[in-house]
Structures are given as C-alpha cells and as structure tokens.
C-alpha cells in the first residue's frame, strides 16, 4: 500500500503539534520516525489512525484521498497501530483483548472463546511469541503486554502497521524477536512506521528515516548515518551520547538492605530475600526485565509497599515502619517508574508539581499557609534549569509531553539536598537530548556525594550510568557485576542465568543490538 500524508496540521489550543507535515510510506518499507519528546510523532500517527482529526491536510492511500474519522475507518483502510500507551483492558484476558472489536460469536452474539484462544495460540506460534490466552492482562509483565499489543495489531492483517515506541519496555532479546517479526512482515509487503528513541534500533532496521522537530519535518536520513548525526538532526544541536563520567569515589554505605522480602497484592513473593548496599558517591544500577521485583524493591525503599521481612537502613538508621514522608524528609529522592500514575498530579500546575513533596516546609509553606510567591519563583528557576518546555508555569502538567513531564519529576527530586536518590526508569520514553541532560544531572548528584540507585530495564542507560550493576530475576539478585559487563551477558543474567553461565552463552549467541 502506498500511503501519502500531505500538509497534515493539528493544533492543541495555541500549540501547533503538527505543522504541515508531509510523509510518504512506500509499500514494504520500514519507515522510522525520529524526534524529540513532544515533537509531534504520536500526534501525527494518531491522525493517521483516526484518533485525532487533522485541522487541515490530507491522507492519500494508493492515489485516493481518504478521510479517517475513527479507528474503525483506519482499520477498514488496512491500517494497524500499536500505541505508545497500552491500549489493553487490564481486567480482560489476553484472548478477550485480542478479540475485542472483531469477536467471533456463536449465534445470538455469544462469544466463541475457543476460537479466540486458538487464534492467539496460532499467532503466538507463527511469530514465536509466547502468551497464555487465558491470563489476565493486568497479571502479566509489561513485556508480555507489549506482545499482546503487537499480536492485536497483527490479527488485522494490516498493510500499514504503526508501531509507536513498542520497544521501550522490552529486553534486548525481546527487541530482537520484534525486529525479526518486522522483517518477516516487511517481506510479506507490509509497510511499517516505527517510532523509537533508541538510535541503535533505528540503525538496525530502518529503510528510511524521517526526523520531526517541533511539529515539522526537518529532514530525512539514511540508516547509515551515525547515531551522533541522527541525534543532532533530532535535537538541532550536537549531542554527547556518552556521559562524561569520572570513576566513582564511593564512601560510606548510605543504603543498607538486608533480607528484604516483599509479598505483592496477589500473595506472590515479589522481592525475595534481597541484600544490597549503595555507598555515597556511587551509582548502583538494578537491571532486570520489568516485573522481576524492581518496582516493589523501589517502593519498599520508599515505604510505599509494606515489607514482609528484612531491614532497610539509611545511614545506619532503620527505616522499616517509617512513613514515606519520613523517608523523603530523611533525604531520599524518588523518581517513580510510572510517572503518569505516581510521579505527578496531572491536573496540578507545573509550579505545584515542582513542590509536590516540598510544599510543607520553608520557603514554600510555614506549616499552615502556602507561600505562592516562593512556589512560583522556584518554578521559574527549575523550568529554566531543566529546560522544561512549557508555555507557562501555570499550565497543568498533563498538557506537557512525556519527556517534559519526566523532567518535572526529576527537577523536583533533584532540587533539594539528598542522601539517596532512587530513580526508576529515569529516562523512559525520553529523547536523546533530554537523556544527555538528565544523565548528566544524575552523575553530578553522585559526584556531590549522594548514593544513587537506578532501576532500569534499559541496558544503554545502565551502561551510561552504573558504577556497579545488580541484576534481578524473579525477586532475587542473581549477581552484582561491574559496569563494563558486556550487554549480551547482562541480557542473559536478566533472563535468569548466573554470572558464569551468562558469560559462556553470550559469546556463542550474540544478539543484533548487542553487537552494534
């Protein structure tokens, strides 16, 4: 299918998110869209899929102009989409999610669950995905959820498949699988629009690359371009992809975790007898596939999840039984993994969110009244310092793009003196320019003598930041390894292999991205 977007424009209020965008997708090509956070990539794709209506411009399919006013129009035209944010119903089973909208039924509209299960099994077999059709989506790890999303898109036999940041939550091995699937589809003539912030992936798979900046197409690039060149095109300036980092100068242990065990809501052991230590002036990265207990570990450190056994000490003082507020006051900074859910209050202004855990104390509050002048002053300073792209400090945070929302959270947490910074996925979904900046800030925090604990599923990030790496699998720490451990080896440990096992296997079976 030949797809042509011409002059597509979309504004939100006074913000022009897409400004006369032209784009051509040839049949059977993998077309990568690159751009900073908030550049307008998702907006463009949402218009193509009928979720947003363009203010002007047209969509032409195989020479015919079409109007797409709803996703069902898009589906009719052979367009499929995997959305940046999961479009899965958490309380439904995998099969229910996949059949939704195109249900096979017995007479009388009664669902044919057998057929749906069979379809899921068949697809997972065809593409080598492993999913249990009867599992509830909310119970499966995000990586598997992402597969469900992909299967959902594939069942439609789309001729154009849009993948909006599908790899953000996948392990290297899973990304490999996805890349294989994309190649397979391409061979069958499906065109793919692929959005990602990971330049390695772009280089590995793209046939064509289009770069968008601030709502406009700023250029095309060849897959042979270097990461630096791509980054520069995206951000509009030279980007340092490697964080400048002196070797760590670890001092006294700040965080000491012993025998920590957390049981989750469903009664499963999420964190299993974990011992960890983070020293002042070092960055310990916790690596692992999502869903292996890292989330619960971080939440336990902050007192958000009660612990079943073990002890957590901050500079020698026991934290168990203390409230979250106490821990924050004691000098822990926290960047939660799911920012939209836990990191900020969407309907609050940027200024308010920048003091979400600071508002009680001077200078922002005196225990009773808020000092709004100080709050605003603080907001201006942080917006400046962290280059938060907003039209004003009085705007709600929900109107910012994802990357900028993340900056708000980091700006807040880094704006007070810390002993320990716990940051989960600090740059998930963030563009390379922002990553450069955020990583720099985290390293600076380390150099000031803060103990830093990073939880990340992103091997790039781990490589860039970590002084030491602890790999978690099924709630246990399977090993603590030096930062320069090869990524394939880390990947294997994340899949449960021990340190030595991983070393041997990795040499025999290199992955695509591991070798780029």
């Amino acid at each position, binding site marked *: 299918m030949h797809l042509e977007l011409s002059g597509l424009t979309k*504004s939100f*209020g*006074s*913000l*022009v*998110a897409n*400004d006369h965008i032209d784009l051509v997708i040839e049949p059977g090509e993998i077309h990568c869209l690159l751009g900073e956070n908030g550049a307008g990539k998702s907006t463009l794709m949402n218009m193509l899929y009928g979720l947003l209506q363009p203010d002007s411009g047209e969509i032409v399919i195989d020479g015919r102009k079409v109007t797409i006013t709803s996703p069902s129009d898009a589906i009719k035209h052979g367009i499929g989409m995997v959305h940046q944010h999961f479009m899965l119903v958490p309380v439904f089973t995998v099969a229910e999610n996949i059949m939704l909208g195109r249900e096979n039924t017995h007479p009388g509209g009664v669902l044919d669950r057998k057929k749906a299960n069979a379809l899921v099994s068949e697809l997972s077999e065809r593409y080598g995905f492993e999913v249990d059709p009867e599992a509830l989506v909310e119970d499966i790890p995000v990586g598997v959820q992402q597969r469900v999303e992909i299967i959902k898109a594939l069942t439609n036999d789309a001729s154009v498949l849009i993948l909006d940041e599908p790899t953000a939550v996948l392990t290297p091995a899973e990304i490999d699988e996805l890349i294989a699937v994309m190649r397979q589809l391409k061979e069958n003539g499906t065109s793919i629009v692929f959005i990602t912030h990971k330049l390695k992936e772009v280089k590995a798979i793209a046939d064509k690359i289009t770069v968008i*900046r*601030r*709502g*406009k*197409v*700023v*250029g*095309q*690039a*060849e897959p042979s*371009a270097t990461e630096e*060149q791509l980054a520069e*095109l995206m951000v*509009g300036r030279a980007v340092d992809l490697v964080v400048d980092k002196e070797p760590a100068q670890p001092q006294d242990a700040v965080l000491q975790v012993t025998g920590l065990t957390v049981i989750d809501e469903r009664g499963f052991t999420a964190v299993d007898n974990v011992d960890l230590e983070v020293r002042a002036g070092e960055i310990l990265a916790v690596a692992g596939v999502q869903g292996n207990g890292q989330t619960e570990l971080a939440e336990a450190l*902050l007192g*958000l999840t009660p612990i079943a056994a073990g002890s957590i000490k901050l500079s020698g003082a026991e934290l168990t039984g203390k*409230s*979250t*507020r106490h*821990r*924050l*006051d004691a000098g822990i900074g*926290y960047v*939660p993994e799911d920012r939209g*859910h*836990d*990191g*900020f*209050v*969407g*309907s*609050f202004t940027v200024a*308010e969110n920048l003091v*979400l*855990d600071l*508002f*009680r104390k001077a200078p922002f*509050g005196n*225990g*009773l*009244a*808020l000092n*709004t002048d100080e709050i605003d002053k603080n907001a201006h300073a942080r917006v400046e310092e962290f280059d938060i792209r907003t039209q004003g400090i009085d705007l709600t945070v929900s109107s910012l793009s994802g990357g900028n929302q993340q900056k708000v959270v980091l700006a807040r947490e880094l704006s007070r003196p810390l002993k320990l910074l716990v940051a989960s996925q600090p740059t998930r979904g963030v563009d390379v320019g922002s990553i450069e900046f955020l990583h720099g800030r985290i390293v600076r925090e380390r150099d000031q003598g803060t103990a830093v604990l990073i939880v990340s599923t992103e091997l790039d990030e781990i490589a860039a930041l970590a002084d030491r790496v602890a790999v978690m699998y099924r709630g246990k720490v399977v090993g603590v390894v030096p930062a320069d451990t090869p990524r394939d080896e880390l990947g294997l440990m994340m899949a449960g292999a021990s340190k030595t096992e991983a070393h041997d296997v990795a040499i025999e079976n290199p992955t695509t991205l591991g070798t780029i």
Partner: protein
Amino acid sequence: MSTATATPPVAKPERSGLPSWAIQGLVSVSAIVLALLVGAILIIVGDDEVNAAVKYFGAAPMDTISAAFSAVGEAYQALAVGAIGGITPISESLTQATPLICGGLAVSLAFRTGLFNIGAQGQLIMGAILAGYVGFAWHLPPVLHLIVAIVAGLIGGAIWGGMVGLLKARTGAHEVIVTIMLNYVAIYLLQWLLTTSTFQRPGRADPISPIVDANAQYPQFGDTRLHVGFLLALVAAVFVWWLLNKSTIGFELRAVGANADASKTAGMSVGRAYVVAMVVAGALAGLAGTQQVLGTDLPLTDGVAASVGFDAITVALLGRGTPLGTVLAGLLFGALNAGGLQMQLITQTPLTLTTVLQATIVLFVAAPALVRSIFRFLPKDRGAGAILAKGWNG
C-alpha cells in the same frame, strides 16, 4: 541528509471576545431562562383556567393563550417578588440560602478531595442535635452560649463526617455507601432522641424540643429572619477558599483528590487526607445544622434538616465545587425557595414546581453545550466543561 532550521511552535491567535467568567455568566443566565421556559410549560399544563379555556380552544383560541400568559406571568412575578422584591424577600432568600451554602461547602470540599459526600444530611442532623441540645439544655451567658452551641454543632457534624473518612481510610469502605447509611442512622437517632424526656419540651409528649435559649440564638438583623449565621456561611466560604487554595492542608487535599497515588508517592497520607476532608466537611454541614436550629427553627424537631443535605449536593455541583460558585448557587437556590413559597401563596402553584425549576436549572447550567446549541449566539468558552468530571475511583 538535509537540515532545516528549528521553528518555535506557532501560537494561534486567541479567540477574541469575552472573558471566561462573563461567558459562564451568560451561559448560566441562559440556562435559567431555559429552565423557566420548562417551568412555564408545567404551569400552563397545571393551570385550571388554561385547562378550562383549552376545552373551547377552537372557539376562542385567544382565551387559552391569554390564560396561559397570565398564569405564567402571575406565577413568575410572584416568584420574583418573593425572592428579591424588597428587603423582606431578600432577607428571606438569604435566610434560605444560609444552610444551603454551608451544606454545599461540605459537599464541595469533599469533592475536591475525591470523595462523594452524600452524607451532608446526616452530618447536618448530628450538628443540629448537639447544637440544639446545648442551646436548650445548658444556660450560659450571652455570646458564650452561642459560641459553645455552635462549637457543639461543629463537633457533631465533624464526628459524623469523620467516621466516614476514618472507615474509608482504615478499611476502604466506600464513602457513598457509608454516607447513605449514616443519613438514615442520624434521622432515626434524632427521632428516637425526640421521644426521650431529655429532649422533649417539658409537659409535652410531642417530638419537639424546648426552644433554644435566647443567648444561644443567632442574633437577627432587624426584624427580618436573617441572622448572623449568614455571615458565618460567608466566612466559611472564605475559609474553605483559603483552605483549598492557600494552605498546605488544602494542597494535600486537592492533590489526593486529583491523584491519590502520586500524593502517596510524594509522602502524603491518603488516609489522613480523607479523614481531614471529611471532618472539615462534616463540621461545615454541622454549621448548617446550627443555622437551622439556632437561627431559624429554634426548637429541634425531626424535620430540622428538611432536604438541605440533599439540595446541598446540587448546590455544590452547580457551584462547580468552588467556594465562590457554591455561595452563588446557594443564593440562587435560596431565592428560588423563598420565591417559590410566595408563588404558591399567590398563584397556588405547587411547591413541587420549585423543585422542578431547580433541577432544570442545574441540568442546563451543567450542560453549556446544550444551552449553546439552543442559543447559538453564545460564544464558546475554552475553559468551561468537565470540572469535577471524575468517577468513583477518585
């Protein structure tokens, strides 16, 4: 590889026209007009003379029409006169508005914390019970007596509201269920108390308490029924405004109301916020209770709450959960109540019509898009719309 210069996002020109508050005002006025039209239809349908004239509509159609016009005209004239036609009507409207404002604030404040307080009725009753009891059973010096009685009322409401918050915080019990149930418990409690000699008027077996001491009554303005409680209602509105927008506690309440998870992550206690919000909300409803028993009713009866606790929900929602809005909505409802009494007196229009009018007004005010699709000249307001549009999950 081609390059292009980065351009900043283009700002689209703002839609010129009226400020947001003016547009909202216009929409509200239009909504009231629409509601009055609906009411007019009901008046016509129910009017005996119109019905008599309709029977010979073919013979003398003008009779029907003029009867209809005069029926509607007389009714609404009476409504207007009863609401704002002079000092006494205005004082009556303000008197009626007083408990509605406080009750409305009780609902608003909880709303902003993500709680649906359907229990203002019960909280008001508990406030009235305690305030009334202190008012007629204790005998204290002037001023002090009133203050003590008011405080008792606040405590009564606060306990009843606080229980809801506490149960929600400790056990997760849904506040909608608990408040509905506590409303019943409160009214049965009041009915029972009024059969005891402690609460009954000496020498009487009727369920009516003695009149509260003069010292414990809200002083009245001149010889109107308007009393100092009205000023307290305004003070309460200012207090709630300050609490929500200018205080650290309010910051916490709003944060919990908007996103409980993020608030928890930022070190706030969701449970504490629920308790605080419901205690304050209960106290506000309790204040409404004191206004009933120490301001207008004077003896305590089982009708002390009337339907104030439920009307308060509508008032709060009409006021979009903001203190100023709640005050305005309370004044409107108070005026309609006062005018409605006058309307039934003069044109014998049933009070149920006032109820219909109030419901229709809120319906139209809450749906600006509908009003706009009828009155097409109204400008669009970007800011308006889904305020308080939240589900059960907070």
